[in-house]
């Protein structure tokens, strides 16, 4: 395939811009290197995130690009934040609006249903992924649809939608560039906003060469993007149905809102005669005043861009077409009743917690082996399958940065700690951790044993040969230097410097 390079593609003016997901400085990869694949999935067995993370880190070019790219997004976010005086007030409002809506979710769902139905939208309810897929297939079959164009939706990833449709002979074409790359490579998205961020340009060139016939030796991002545009456009024009997700659902007006940078949701929704939107029940907000708060926060938090290029509001079908909304529960109503974990439902899927997380940036989203990766994944994934994702809450340094950047103020790092407690209480803990925790528990339970152990540990840290500290059992030693240990413990220092004569020591 030869893609004509339009002059807009080489516009020097564009080099100075960093809107959308663009990086604020060039981050071109230097070498080509085989792409590390994600976590090995073995049925219901617990996912080993650190095994996959080690393979990602061993691919140094991938790791360096991933880390630099996401940290750049985090820095862009900070810059935007500093430009808005009321930023913290907006975060408080966003959190408050979501908590209010979740506390009356039944009321707002019924209100949305009533208003949307009055405007000609057909509203469906699905209790899980399987029911969602069956509802959509039924709509498509009854209208003879064989080709469906689709914009990005994490919910349909949750539902295993593409695999289901493939088995039922409906061709599904993802129209977001990153999502299309992942679809053509038969790989899940690694990030909620930038699905192919773990791939280098050379990885994309090799996927496109195999699947859409691009030049395998041309890894220019402009060329590859143009190839995808030209390959996808005829499919957009011939599809019989379009599908989108929904970022926000406004109950009082019966509107659902979709945010994209490529305009692919608008094309998917407006070109074919049938539009189906799959939306999680937690996406509800009350009114348009509330919507303003979220539109101001979403893209700024996600990418450090003031707004997405396209913010699309659907309130009813256009003349001569059909519009369906499938409201999907898939575990959400159950999560609403979890005392410690319900605030996770406030999430607006901006990915800011992923961009800031040192573990995510170094290990890649596919290492989590779950639909949701990064800090938000650590607290959502176990609600889907507590056994399979029991190791994930340990993939965190507990630095709290995720909580600090979250636009809806989810207490992510506290929930990670709560999950560790909950999992240990449920016996969902790996054998190695169990032994270590037991030993640590015995030492920490007795002040005498604890104090006696400290100088030993300190001396050991100082004198043990490198290989004994940085080995396979000590996962914290990997890719990390342990800080210099102090010469005395705090207690020793206190006794020498501050302790008044006659003060006893309790033990």
């Amino acid at each position: 395939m030869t893609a004509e390079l339009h002059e807009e593609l080489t516009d020097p003016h564009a080099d100075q811009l960093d809107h959308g997901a663009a990086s604020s400085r060039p981050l071109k990869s230097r070498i080509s290197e085989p792409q590390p694949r994600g976590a090995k999935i073995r049925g219901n067995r617990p996912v080993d995130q650190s095994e996959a993370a080690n393979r990602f880190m061993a691919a140094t070019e991938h790791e360096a690009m991933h880390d630099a790219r996401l940290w750049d997004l985090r820095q862009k976010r900070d810059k935007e934040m500093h430009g808005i005086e009321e930023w913290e007030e907006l975060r408080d409002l966003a959190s408050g609006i979501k908590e209010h809506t979740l506390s009356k979710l039944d009321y707002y769902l019924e209100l949305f249903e009533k208003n949307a139905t009055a405007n000609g939208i057909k509203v469906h309810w699905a209790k899980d992924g399987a029911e969602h897929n069956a509802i959509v297939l039924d709509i498509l079959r009854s209208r003879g649809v064989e080709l469906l164009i689709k914009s990005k939706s994490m919910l349909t990833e949750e539902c295993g939608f593409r695999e289901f449709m493939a088995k039922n002979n409906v061709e599904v074409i993802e129209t977001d560039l990153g999502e299309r790359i992942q679809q053509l490579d038969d790989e899940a998205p690694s990030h909620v906003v930038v699905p192919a961020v773990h791939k280098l340009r050379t990885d994309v060139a090799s996927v496109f060469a195999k699947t859409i016939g691009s030049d395998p030796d041309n890894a220019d991002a402009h060329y590859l993007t143009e190839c995808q545009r030209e390959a996808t456009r005829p499919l957009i024009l011939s599809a019989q149905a379009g599908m989108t997700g929904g970022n926000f659902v406004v109950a009082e007006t019966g509107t659902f809102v979709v945010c994209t940078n490529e305009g692919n949701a608008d094309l998917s929704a407006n070109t074919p005669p049938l539009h189906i939107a799959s939306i999680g029940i937690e996406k509800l907000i009350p009114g348009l005043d509330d919507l303003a708060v979220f539109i101001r926060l979403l893209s700024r938090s996600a990418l450090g861009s003031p707004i997405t290029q396209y913010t699309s509001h659907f309130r009813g079908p256009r003349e001569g077409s059909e519009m369906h909304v499938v409201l999907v529960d898939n575990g959400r109503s159950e999560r609403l009743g979890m005392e410690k974990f319900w605030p996770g439902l406030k999430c607006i899927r901006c990915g800011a917690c992923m961009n800031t997380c040192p573990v995510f940036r170094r290990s890649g989203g596919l290492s989590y082996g779950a639909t949701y990766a990064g800090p938000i994944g650590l607290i959502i994934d176990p609600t889907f399958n507590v056994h399979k994702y029991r190791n994930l809450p340990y993939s965190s340094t507990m630095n709290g940065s995720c909580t600090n950047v979250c636009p809806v103020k989810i207490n992510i790092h506290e929930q990670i700690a709560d999950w560790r407690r909950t999992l240990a209480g449920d016996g969902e803990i790996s054998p190695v951790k169990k032994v270590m925790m037991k030993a640590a528990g015995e030492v920490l339970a007795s002040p005498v044993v604890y104090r006696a152990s400290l100088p030993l540990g300190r001396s050991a840290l100082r004198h043990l040969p490198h290989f004994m500290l940085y080995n396979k059992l000590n996962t914290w030693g990997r890719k990390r230097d342990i800080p210099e240990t102090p010469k005395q413990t705090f207690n020793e220092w206190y006794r020498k410097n501050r302790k008044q004569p006659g003060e006893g020591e309790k033990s």
Partner: protein
Amino acid sequence: MSGSREAILGAIRKNHVQGERARPAVPLFDQAAPFDLKALFQRSLERMGGRMLTPDATDPMAPVRQAIVKPGPVLSCVPEFEGDMKITPQTKPTDIAPVEYAVLRAAFGVAETGSLCFTEKQLHVNTTGFLPQHLVILLDPAQIVYNLHNAYQRPEWTQAHYAVFQSGPSATADIEGVLVHGAQGVRSLSVLFHPAS
């Protein structure tokens, strides 16, 4: 499925552990709004990859003609400009695909983000906003609001079935963060301040 509707609502009612939380009032945050919103709109639009055309007092449509530099059909949805194509009641969404330039009028603009709002009233056929290669847009400076809070006070949201904010052209940076305009939608977006007649 109707059984699921009741099951979901029932589960929600059973699981309301948070008690009822008050709905916050959202301020407009517009005390710092400048008197002239045009300059802020222009800065924001350019930040998002859009371009401003320089008005011409003697020949108001000259900037639009000058912005049309590539061969191909020009579709006009505004009375001020004569194109090669017009929307008719028979026009289908896919008929817009060959269009090189579409000339549209925005319902209003948002200075904070450089956004342009279109509804089916301005687009006639919704794909007019996305299938052409390029857009040239007329915006009445009197129809610029300061920020998104003000924007959502407008009447369009409860009148139209479809409404979109376009903020610059279609863009992607999914490959190594390299910004590319024209991922799926329009490759360029130019705006001319021009009062509605």
